């Protein structure tokens, strides 16, 4: 490459774990630095928004965005980076499917603000103050971003070219993704990079203990039971989401004897991960009696939506819409 490709990283509503995942590349990152010129990485480097604004449209080859979109500031930055980038990648669960912050979509903005600044156990707010986007004190105006009514995945705000799954993506997945991007064969648009195209079970060390068909009379919760470490977690009764979750993480949680919570998202061809997961869990219930089914769900899965949408509520059918003006 005569001229180094320009690369940018950005984070929205996120925890910093995706940034740590990049740092965990350690010496591998030098290889990236060798191939690319990083023009924007707020976490690690000194470039500002103006530097991005001054670039030509599509001058950046690849932008990696992690985190979901919840504030006006995040929306503006995502739109700006889309304009300046040839390829835009949603990095990690929050950017890809809304992630854990996306769980907030079950609650209104007002419920959140009321708890934080008024009703919370430890709040002491006799003057009834509340963070205000355009707040004026004396002659001076404070600006804080608008807190939107709901959380968006990045592709609900702008067009996304590729996705990198995981909460957070593992070192191996990040490295595979970068290799894929810089390889001679560019993957088709919309691909999920770096991970497996098969479900987690195919790489799970417990897979050989999993029978062809599974029928369960009850589900177990881990709060009051301990999984056996040498037997498929699902046949033990835990709602392990391995069968409907994309592989590529090397079954790290299962190796720690913990059921898969689904952070790598759906396999190819599935749009609504939670719907797929819930239909899978229903299909393994060994009963046709409605009362019995109700009882099985109530005892082991009494809030099934919480289990299947841990990382993807904003991409569920109910919420899968493009952003509107003012995040409404």
């Amino acid at each position, binding site marked *: 490459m005569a001229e180094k490709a320009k690369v940018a990283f950005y*984070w929205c509503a996120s925890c910093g774990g995706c940034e740590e995942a990049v740092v965990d590349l350690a010496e591998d990152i030098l290889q990236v630095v060798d191939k690319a010129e990083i023009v924007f990485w707020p976490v690690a480097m000194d470039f500002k928004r103006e530097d991005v604004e001054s670039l030509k449209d599509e001058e950046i080859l690849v932008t990696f965005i992690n985190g979901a979109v919840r504030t006006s500031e995040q929306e503006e930055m995502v739109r700006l980076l889309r304009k300046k980038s040839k390829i835009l990648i949603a990095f990690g669960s929050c950017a890809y499917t809304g992630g854990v912050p996306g769980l907030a979509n079950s609650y209104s903005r007002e419920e959140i603000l009321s708890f934080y600044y008024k009703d919370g*156990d430890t709040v002491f707010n006799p003057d009834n103050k509340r963070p205000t986007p355009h707040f004026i004190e004396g002659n001076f105006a404070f600006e804080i971003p608008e807190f939107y009514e709901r959380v968006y995945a990045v592709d609900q705000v702008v067009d996304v070219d590729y996705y990198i799954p995981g909460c957070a993506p593992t070192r191996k997945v990040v490295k595979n993704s970068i290799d894929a991007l810089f390889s001679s064969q560019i993957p088709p648009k919309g691909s999920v990079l770096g991970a497996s195209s098969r479900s987690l079970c195919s790489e799970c060390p417990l897979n050989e203990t999993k029978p062809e068909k599974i029928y369960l009379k009850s589900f177990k919760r881990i709060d009051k039971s301990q999984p056996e470490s040498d037997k498929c977690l699902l046949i033990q009764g835990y709602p392990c989401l391995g069968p409907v979750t994309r592989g590529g993480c090397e079954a790290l949680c299962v190796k720690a004897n913990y059921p898969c919570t689904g952070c790598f998202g759906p396999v190819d061809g599935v749009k609504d991960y939670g719907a797929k997961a819930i239909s899978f869990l229903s299909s393994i219930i060994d009963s046709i009696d409605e009362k019995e089914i109700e009882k099985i769900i109530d005892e082991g899965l009494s809030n099934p939506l919480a289990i299947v949408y841990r990382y993807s509520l904003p991409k569920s059918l109910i919420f899968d819409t493009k952003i509107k003006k003012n995040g409404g």
Partner: protein
Amino acid sequence: MEHKITIDPITRLEGHGKIEIFLDEKGNVEKAFLVVPELRGFEIFVKGKPAEDMPIITPRICGVCPTAHHMASTKALDDLYKTQPPSPAKKLREMLYNMFMLEDHALHVYVLGGPDFIVGPKAKKSERNVLGVIQKVGLEVGKKVISMRREIRELMTLLAGKVIHPAWGVPGGVTRGIKKDEKENFVKVAEKGVEFALFTLKVFKDIVLSNKEYVDLILSDAYTHRTYYMGLVDENKKLNFYDGKIRVVDPDGKEYALFDVRNYRDHIAEHVENWTYIKFPFLKKVGWKGFVDGKDSGVYSVAPLARLNACDGISTPKAQEAYEEFYKNLGGKPVHHTLANHWARVVEMIYAAERFLELAKDPEITSDNIRKIPTETPTVGIGVVEAPRGTLIHHYETNEKGYITKANLIVATQNNSARISMSIDKAARNLIKEGKYDEGILNMIEMAFRAYDPCHACGTHSLPGNIPVLINIRNKDGKIIETIKNFE
């Protein structure tokens, strides 16, 4: 003429913190504010979720310190289900926790805050980063830091599933133990960890403490606040990261309170402002008196310096030695100099490494008795740990089936938010006089800010480690009349 100065740490656009300074008519500082422009709403959206999911969901608050949230959450579940883990499980948890404290503190020392001192407060910005540190201490040391971090994080992955984010803690124990043939590797890495922490102390002493200019800076009034301090202590009032009671000492160093975390609401309250999404915790019984220090103000501080001030010593020998040396050199307890946090952090690294080694060698550590399965009906659970950035409290309430009905969290950095604002305010007042200021303010404010290792700047947990700062000076119509910045 009135001015508003906006200092954008690199994280403004990223939603993690900016500073606003207001000047009065004479051009002196009227007020300086730390503004955190982000909120995610965890306490609300966890409602209705199964309690056992909390150690999975809450680490997503912070991917830099997920282990801290995972552990505070798991401990809250113990309390919720009225169970205690068997001794080996407790030891495993405490061991993982100390591994995490060691690698996280090391990151700060070498990559983030450390460059201020190791490379030098007056060094060029372009050199005040991890690469500058490597230049100063040698490439071999750089490699040592990278490999130490990697080795510890790989063992954490083995034990707890993922390092970002763990899947391991359950009420009454953990899901995976250490196999007999894995133990040796933990001991080996722990031994290396102790050696590495002691080496870090030597680096700090050689470079920082032998330089009078640096020491004067640490001791200078600009970085001094006489506040209360909070930290966890064990039954002998010694430092502990994983468990114990919360102890608060007053600005004279005298014990002000010693309480079980279950009573945190009697002691901690949160003040709200209009201009930031972050809240400002304070000591409830002392009261909120504004952003001021002293005995009458409820402002308190957490994290390494606060923890050393709040305990009566350290239970491991090498760390105790380093602790005594720390106070001997800084004029006894308590120390009020914010920049001493860097030194305190190195002392804590030694403790974390020594405790990691003690636990790795413990005969019980390979036991398969790692879980006491709860039988009680869950009601209310409150858990606490010391995160690298301070006291971290998780409080949950559930229905009888164990589904969350209420959650309240006091997150580590948040405890420091008032004092961080005060440090910024003081630095601004010292440097802006009658409308005159120079670029030194950038440096000073940056250092005041970074000493706390604040999580809303947890973006700085990465390569170059300096916080690029841009100051826009605006007239009262908001038009920029001058811009100064600390980067090219």
